[in-house]
């Protein structure tokens, strides 16, 4: 699996070759640094660890400072592991968009969705609600309805979908097309929306 780390910048729309207006997300992707190389012999599996986004040395613990110093890198804010990264990669190598992606590629994008707080079942689980405002309904248009049967089983079964904290989860969106790559500016444009708020970390997998 190849991939790169990035920062969601925001959304806009661009025109494709046929003149169609396409909604897209702008991602500042890379440059990333390989902070660790794992191999079959030393770790039991092959993987590389990428670091993205600088952070101050004073905000980094001593053990982590040592970890980044091994790769001759300044401390990185985000560190993510990719299994079975293709190509020969050395510790301390820089990874740019061009090394991983081409225009027109299909990618998966992982992000942390926007936190929405305590939400009811209609927003959280897509319940349809009651559907009628009259015929005896009083302030229960968005209520969940029955939670199950009565004396048997005399309990609410586990996993019953109810209201609660919504959003802020790791979400993977699959099969997004790479529309544009501006390699010099480290800018990546993918079709459609991407999970998370502006400025949040996104993992682009290929």
């Amino acid at each position, binding site marked *: 699996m190849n991939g790169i780390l990035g920062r969601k*910048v925001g*959304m*806009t*729309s*661009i*025109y494709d070759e046929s003149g169609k207006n396409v909604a897209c997300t702008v991602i500042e992707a890379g440059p990333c640094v390989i902070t660790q190389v794992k191999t079959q012999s030393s770790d039991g599996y092959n993987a590389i660890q990428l670091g993205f986004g600088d952070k101050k040395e004073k905000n980094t613990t001593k053990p982590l400072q040592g970890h980044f110093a091994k790769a001759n890198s300044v401390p990185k804010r985000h560190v993510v592991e990719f299994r079975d990264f293709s190509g020969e990669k050395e510790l301390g190598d820089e990874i740019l968009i061009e090394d991983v992606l081409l225009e027109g590629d299909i990618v998966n994008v992982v992000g942390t969705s926007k936190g929405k707080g305590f939400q009811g079942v209609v927003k959280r689980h897509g319940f349809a609600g009651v559907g009628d405002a009259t015929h005896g309904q009083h302030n229960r248009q968005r209520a969940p309805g029955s939670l199950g049967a009565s004396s048997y089983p005399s309990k609410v079964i586990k996993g019953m979908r109810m209201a609660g904290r919504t959003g802020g989860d790791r979400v993977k969106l699959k099969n997004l097309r790479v529309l*544009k790559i*501006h390699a010099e500016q480290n*800018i990546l*444009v993918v079709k459609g929306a991407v999970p998370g708020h502006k400025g949040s970390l996104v993992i682009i997998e290929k």
Partner: protein
Amino acid sequence: MDAVKFVQEQNITKKDFPEFQAGDNVEIVYNIVEGGKERPQAFRGDVIKWSGEGATKTFTVRKISHGVGVERIFPINTPNIIEIKVLKRGKVRRSKLYYLRALVGKRAKIKEKRTYK
């Protein structure tokens, strides 16, 4: 937001269209796809509003066709617009001419702005 602006600027090609504003009578010639083929088509009417900023700016043109009001929104940066002709400059007192939707006949007519030398 600079990266977003950069992406937009790379995508659009600046065209030399005349300046116009709400109230002006314009003719837009644009490409439409019909049966897999492209052909130009003209849309003539009054500009009733400008909306948006930068690369995603749009304007709305309204005309009365066979007694039915028709509005069409054009993004100014779309590659499909071939030509824009300003036919008349209108004399209006606001930037959004929504009031025209409620009017028919002679009342829905915009006075022409005349400039004398």
